[in-house]
């Protein structure tokens, strides 16, 4: 298990060159403390523009804190954060660049859908009234309906419409489907996928369910224990990580360039998720007798990084 290097997240290739590819969110040593508890600490992160980024982590990992910092609802206790080139929440122009769908997708219960659209039109300089109206129509919602009487799925759609019709550069979604039933969840995610494909915007979408993100995201950040554990392109993460199976795995005996993220002992074989920077690829691993490397699924990969940070789940030898 890694210990000393935990605070340095693995970064995808998009940011290695120090901003050669434009970044939509840049955090440096970002931390947020509530009274005595750090909800997010020492977060250094570059999110490239034009991606659909999945932010995944267990409950209480700091996802909402990170996204609230990015939306300007919170101010950092330490470090800096820059979103679309500006300080979050620093003014009207900055607010117009970021669309935010908050957790539980709040809406004014006493106001109708039409009222909410008027609200958006009055408050947002770049409001796209046609887009908003056509989305509401397409979703089959009646403009005269009060938000208080909408189902959870419809309210989530309303919140998404408000955020998208601002025509933001960055769309932030904080667990928008967490409280939805599977059907509404599926409909919301499908619609989100289509909308994003149409609009060329950057998206950061958090969830504690990897399956939600797997369908829409091409970039992944794993946040656990208030730190970034890993960040990178989904395809590249999948290419770099392998499932190692062997009768007995000794993390110290792995070849150079290969590092165990999590190891599970027991049964006839030990298994490990390894970060593999060797060129061997899938197949056998000569250095470890009886070992086999196979591709790893995104869910297993994420779980490996999440469990790495949770001492209770650590497997001891």
């Amino acid at each position, binding site marked *: 298990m890694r210990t000393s290097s935990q605070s340095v997240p693995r970064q995808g290739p998009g940011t290695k060159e120090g901003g050669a590819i434009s970044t939509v969110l840049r955090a440096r040593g970002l931390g947020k403390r509530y009274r005595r508890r750090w909800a997010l600490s020492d977060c250094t992160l570059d999110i490239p523009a034009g991606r659909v980024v999945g932010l995944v982590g267990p409950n209480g990992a700091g996802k909402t804190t990170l996204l609230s910092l990015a939306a300007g609802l*919170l*101010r950092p206790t330490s470090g800096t954060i820059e979103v679309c080139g500006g300080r979050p929440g620093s003014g009207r122009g900055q*607010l117009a660049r970021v669309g935010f769908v908050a957790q539980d997708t709040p809406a004014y219960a006493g106001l109708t859908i039409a009222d909410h659209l008027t609200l958006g039109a009055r408050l947002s300089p770049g409001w796209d009234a046609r887009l908003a109206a056509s989305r509401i129509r397409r979703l089959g919602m009646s403009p005269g309906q009060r938000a208080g009487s909408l189902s959870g799925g419809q309210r989530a759609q309303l919140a998404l419409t408000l955020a998208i019709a601002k025509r933001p550069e960055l769309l932030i979604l904080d667990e928008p489907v967490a409280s939805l039933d599977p059907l509404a969840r599926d409909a919301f995610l499908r619609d989100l996928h289509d909308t994003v494909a149409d609009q060329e915007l950057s998206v950061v979408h958090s969830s504690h369910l990897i399956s939600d993100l797997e369908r829409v995201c091409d970039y992944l950040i794993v946040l656990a224990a208030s730190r970034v554990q890993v960040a990178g392109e989904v395809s590249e993460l999948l290419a770099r990580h392998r499932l190692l199976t062997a009768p007995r795995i000794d993390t110290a005996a792995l070849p150079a360039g290969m590092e165990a993220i999590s190891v599970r002992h027991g049964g006839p074989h030990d298994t490990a998720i390894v970060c593999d920077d060797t060129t061997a690829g899938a197949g056998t691993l000569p250095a470890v007798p009886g070992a086999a490397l196979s591709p790893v699924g995104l869910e297993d990969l994420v779980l490996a990084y999440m469990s790495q940070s949770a001492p209770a789940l650590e497997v001891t030898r």
Partner: protein
Amino acid sequence: MIWLTWRQFRTQAAVTFGAITVLAAILAATGPQLAHLASSSSNDFLSRVSGADRALWIIGSLAVLAAPALMGLFWGAPLITRELDAGTYRLAWTQTTRTRWLAAKLSLLGLAAMTAAGLLSLAVTWWASPIDAAIASQKGILPPGLLVFPRLSPEMFAARGIAPLGYAAFFFVLGVTIGVAVRRTLPAMALLLTAFAVVQIGMTTFVRPHLIPAEQRTEVISAANLLNINVNNSVTVIGRPGAWVSSQQTINAAGQPAKPPSWVLKCPAGSAATSQACYARLAQLGYRQQITFQPASRFWPLQRNETVIYLVLTVVLAGLCTWWTRRLLS
């Protein structure tokens, strides 16, 4: 932002201004009759005021007194806490800046609160003016009943004139600020009610008597001004028509504070001639009453000064509230 504020507020506004309109209509319907009664009766006007008008006098005065507290309670305190409870602040604060959001809310609802309190006080002050004038010109002991408080008295001052407008602005913004500070609706409402009582009593007791330096007079005790003689420690109390007497004491011929002789108790009793002789003897012995008071003519200057104080406090509080909201939850 004004649109959203108005959209959220219009129901409350309709209820409040509807209630004020109903009360104002009743006052407008009964006011001319009351004024006619006042002009057609001589010194006995106050005792001829009907039971219904006495009830209206109490209801109107209480409405003006309570309006600022009610607006602080139901408009001010829940203004932000409601958004925090429902989570809608996250919607609002990512669409517009908090400063603009709060500025629209404070200015629109603050002006509405001032307008409501102003209209209510205007209606009640106009309606009650014959009664207030009669109380202010009544010499000596007033007829029994409630119609004894001049508009300058601590009981009535906050229910007349322009001061309620300042109170409404102040307690509305105070409600908002307490809501921002404690973040929960019910505790904020309870705190606001406590603050209302403390501030209003404190203002009446400690500040208003000094807004304009009080006058001091030494007066002869007579049947015309004697209000009360306390039998146990034979303290006499005199009044001045329409004035707010903040303190008084009896002094002897040497100018020292003294108890009046015990036979003074008998002065108000007996026939007119013996009573007059009794007061004359008291005056001859050199007993006088020294009073500290605000004369009736200072009603409007005091109202103006107090309103200015509350409006200045409101502006300061609005600044504090804005600063606090910008730091809120961040």
